[in-house]
């Protein structure tokens, strides 16, 4: 199975049906896979904090969900985490495609990416960097289960080692 097939399977295994996302190049096969599967309820959000809010509301009403974004989108959700998801103890599953590293060409991405893990640590949000196909299913399955049983959000960071990263990163050096 590919990395995105494994993610979709792990979400299904744990009855995570809502897929709230802001589009991203790396996430495209994941988003398209969910959109093509009637099991998932896909919502394209205009901003990442909106996706987190929708996942929070859906969880409280009985529908488990994941919010998908890239690293720069994560930089927009600090308030949604710090004043909604974390204090209300809402198990939002955050799936973040990692930019800013391993061939990043956009200096803005490199800087904003450096704020992600310190932000997660400051808020006490558990995170895992997913870099290896062999351990992917295990980490996803156990992390999602832990999120729901302990009512805590989790951030699952998709490393370029797993996804291949942004295709533009492998272009000719100019």
């Amino acid at each position, binding site marked *: 199975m590919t990395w995105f097939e494994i993610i979709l399977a792990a979400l299904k295994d744990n009855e995570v049906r*809502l897929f*709230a996302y802001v589009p991203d190049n790396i996430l495209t096969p994941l988003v398209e896979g969910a959109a093509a599967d009637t099991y998932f*309820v896909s*919502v*394209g*959000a*205009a*901003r990442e*904090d*909106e*996706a*987190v*809010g*929708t*996942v*929070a*509301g*859906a*969880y*409280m*009403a*009985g*529908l488990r*969900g994941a919010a998908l974004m890239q690293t720069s989108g994560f930089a927009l959700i600090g*308030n*949604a985490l*710090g*004043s*909604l998801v974390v*204090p*209300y*103890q*809402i198990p939002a599953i955050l799936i973040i495609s990692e930019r800013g590293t391993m061939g990043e060409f956009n200096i803005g991405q490199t800087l904003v990416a450096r704020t992600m893990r310190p932000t997660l640590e400051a808020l006490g949000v558990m995170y895992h960097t997913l870099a290896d196909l062999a351990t992917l299913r295990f980490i996803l399955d156990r992390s999602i289960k832990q999120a729901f049983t302990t009512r805590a959000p989790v951030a699952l960071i998709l490393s370029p080692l797993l996804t291949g990263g942004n295709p533009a990163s492998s272009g000719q050096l100019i």
Partner: protein
Amino acid sequence: MSTERSLAKTLNRMALTRRLVQRLTHEEAVVAGLGNTNFDLIAAGHRPQNFYMLGSMGLACPIALGVALAQPNRGVIALEGDGSILMGLGCLTTIANVKPRNLTVIIWDNGIYQITGKQPTATAGVTDIVAVARGTGIAHSEWVRDETHFDALIDRRFEDGGPLLLAAKIDDQPGQGQPLRDPVLIRAGFMKGLGTSRNGALDA
């Protein structure tokens, strides 16, 4: 200023919130934005289906959208101030495209950031929030003309088959209730009200 907006009577948020709550007879979920919006909601009498935000300004509508998607047979109402909705207008485009027929958005518009010192918002100037909402594709977006019109719109909110957005011009009277401060209790109580708690011994 549009004719509809100029014809809207200036109303009172507390009075309208009471009218709203009196009309919620089917355990509708209400997601209230932070500050005066939720102070007045709690002053109208706590209901188990109320969710009170303590922060995350601008996310009442996205939260309510999530509730509406999870429980399509339950009416869901988002209450937001003008300052709050201006912080995340993009969510209206999402709601317009998802088209949850069980979602009603109510904007209390007094043209000020009331709780931070009454600084003017964009709606005090040229911005018409109903025109914005219609532009996003929420076709059923209305200025509330007066109390009777508000009642009528709330009572027939499902009849047009899509999400409904109401904007009411309100005065600058402060919220009347005492805010709740415990987010875990708010969340657990709301889940119990929606029938989604785990029914564990320690669940609220």
